[in-house]
């Protein structure tokens, strides 16, 4: 509450490794992003793979991408993972999907079947980027 008469103060935003959440279903995207922010990560969001590429190519700080596979547009999560592997080799990629139980045809750094356990996702994120 603070001292009477003084303005209510909030803490500075926690900063941490940059994570990009790529998901066309806004409620899922917002939930994942919020869970990661509460853990202390800096998170940016993209509604599809094309937006994700735009953020990456414009040098927004990203160390890890969490991307759904099935998304509208000409680029899906698998295509995004391949692009990232070629253009941004230092960026790790976790893929998610509701219609698959595993992914073995593209290099990635983790896969989660939707709906996933948030604690497990965050634990895996920690192993990848700290």
């Amino acid at each position, binding site marked *: 509450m603070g001292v009477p008469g003084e303005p209510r103060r909030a803490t500075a935003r926690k900063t941490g490794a940059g994570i990009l959440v790529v998901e066309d279903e806004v409620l899922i995207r917002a939930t994942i992003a919020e869970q990661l922010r509460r853990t202390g990560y800096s998170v940016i969001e993209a509604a599809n793979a094309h937006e994700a590429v735009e953020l990456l190519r*414009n040098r927004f700080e990203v160390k890890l991408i969490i991307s759904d596979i099935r998304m509208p547009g000409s680029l899906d999560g698998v295509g995004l993972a391949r692009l990232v592997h070629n253009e941004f080799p230092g960026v790790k990629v976790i893929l998610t999907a509701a219609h698959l139980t595993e992914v073995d045809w593209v290099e990635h750094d983790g896969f989660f079947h939707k709906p996933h356990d948030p604690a497990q996702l965050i634990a895996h994120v920690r192993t990848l980027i700290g």
Partner: protein
Amino acid sequence: MPDEPQVQETILIVDRDVLVRTSLAQYLRDCGYAVVEAANAEEAVALLRRDTPVDVVLSDVAMPGALDGFGLAKWIRTHRPQTKIILTGTVLRSIDAAHDLCDEGPLPVPYHAQTVHDRIRRLLAARSATAAGPAADRSRVQSQDAQPEP
């Protein structure tokens, strides 16, 4: 209570341009707000229907889909009358609105709104230099730069 704010206001940013949306969201988070993002009005409605606690909606007017900013504002006045909505027609107005919010925010303004403007302008210029895109996007900042604010 450890270093957590007692009450953190939430702003919902609605903008079809991911570079603008992300830049504004980062700025407002640096000002101490919780920020939720939507790429269009339909996404905004979905978030608001979920009872996401939103205090202010900062929305572009022109958006793809069946619902534009005016339609979103009407929906909010009907279903979430306690939520304040700020409509902006240009990137500059969005930046000005974000700066006003930061002035009222819980943390000292982290950097001048001009920094946000310069950053977004560089991002949009870089986009137009590398790929053809909708002229409307590129003109959102340039047209305002050429004309005085009314």
